[in-house]
């Protein structure tokens, strides 16, 4: 009887798809719960960014801010740093693919312009991607993109700022995923260093009797690196929210697909079972008729 074997195979496949579906559904639910928290973190980080920008703007009117080492462009741009933020884990749809494609496009533009590109990989996916292509990142950070903490972002920022100050790199791009909405996340490249002087234009300045401790230039020296570090932090937060949103969408699609597959397989298994029964009945009937014909 060929039917029985077929049914067994189909049932086994249904079981296997069902267990896959359980996994994709739990990933979907976990990702969904993370999106909310990640978006809150994005919002919670805004007051600091607006506060520090306002203070720097006002300080910028006190003196020549454009001459600050992090604002003044280097005389020649020969080596460009790219901080690339991906996730550590996959199963997030096209999230990492899109981001790495954006990074690759930017790297090509810079190389075509005759500049060397130095990669700072944040996230295991970025590290693996570049190593596989024989590009050794200047530095790699993993385990920090899922739920970014300021201390981690500050470390990335401090490393890049250090290399920029030492003139080992002459320009810094941050390639991250901007969280526009639950449905739209956009791979984005933003120039972080040198800081655009325009960012600090339009300050109101300070009244004459203002008290500074220490001198305005020294305060500015402390403020600007914090400002840059916070930009890395903001980029990491946006990326984390995007990662969770992408994963949720991808896992929802996978769960839905598994449901469709289970439905098809169940139908096929039922048909096979029905066919087996029909065969069996016709065999019995045929046999009975053969016997009755003899008597």
């Amino acid at each position, binding site marked *: 009887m060929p039917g029985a074997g077929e049914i067994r195979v189909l049932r086994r496949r249904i079981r296997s798809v069902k267990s896959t579906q359980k996994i994709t559904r739990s990933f979907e639910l976990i990702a969904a719960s993370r999106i909310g928290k990640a978006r809150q973190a994005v919002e919670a980080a805004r007051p600091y960014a607006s506060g520090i920008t306002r203070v720097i703007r006002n300080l910028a009117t006190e003196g020549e801010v454009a001459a600050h080492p992090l604002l003044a462009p280097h005389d020649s741009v020969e080596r460009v740093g790219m901080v690339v933020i991906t996730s550590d884990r996959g199963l997030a749809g096209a999230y990492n693919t899109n981001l790495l494609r954006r990074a690759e496009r930017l790297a090509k533009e810079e190389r075509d312009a005759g500049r060397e590109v130095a990669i700072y990989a944040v996230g295991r996916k970025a590290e693996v991607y570049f190593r596989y292509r024989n590009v050794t990142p200047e530095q790699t950070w993993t385990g920090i993109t899922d739920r970014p903490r300021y201390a981690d972002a500050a470390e990335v920022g401090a490393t890049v700022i250090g290399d920029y100050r030492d003139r080992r790199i002459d320009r810094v791009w941050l390639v991250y995923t901007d969280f526009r909405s639950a449905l739209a996340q956009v791979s984005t490249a933003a120039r972080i260093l040198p800081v655009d002087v325009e960012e600090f234009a339009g300050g109101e300045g300070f009244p004459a009797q203002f008290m500074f401790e*220490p001198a305005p230039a020294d305060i500015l020296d402390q403020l600007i690196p914090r400002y840059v570090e916070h930009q890395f932090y903001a980029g990491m937060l946006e990326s984390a929210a995007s990662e969770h949103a992408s994963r949720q969408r991808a896992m929802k699609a996978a769960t839905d697909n598994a449901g469709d597959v289970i439905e098809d397989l169940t139908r096929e298994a039922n048909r096979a079972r029905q066919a087996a029964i029909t065969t069996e009945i016709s065999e019995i009937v045929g046999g009975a008729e053969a016997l009755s014909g003899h008597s």
Partner: protein
Amino acid sequence: MATMQVEVVSPEQALFAGEATEVYARSMDGEIGILPGHQPALLLLDVAPLKVKADDGQEHVFAVHSGFLEFSDNRLTVLADVAEPVGEIDVARAQAARQRAEEALRGDAEDAAARTALARATLRTTIAGA
């Protein structure tokens, strides 16, 4: 009673926003107390406690690890590198960090990282009252 608008912000979140009557902090040059109507100022903060006396009489204390304090137009903004409300300090962790830092300093008295770690841990344990 005169009040001023106070905001305490760390890179990760806003910790306090509201009306206050007194604020005490320590800048790199020493202790400073700010009352409403104080001369406008921009200060670098040390690793030190920050005390905010809210207009409802409640006192909020934060462990502030460096940062800036700006006061102008009766608005006071603290942008801290790290800031923790007293209630959220992990005392056991701070004490462990303090011991680690002290040991590192016994080995190398010039260890700047250990020195900073010690200052932070000491601040945490002190204001948490442990």
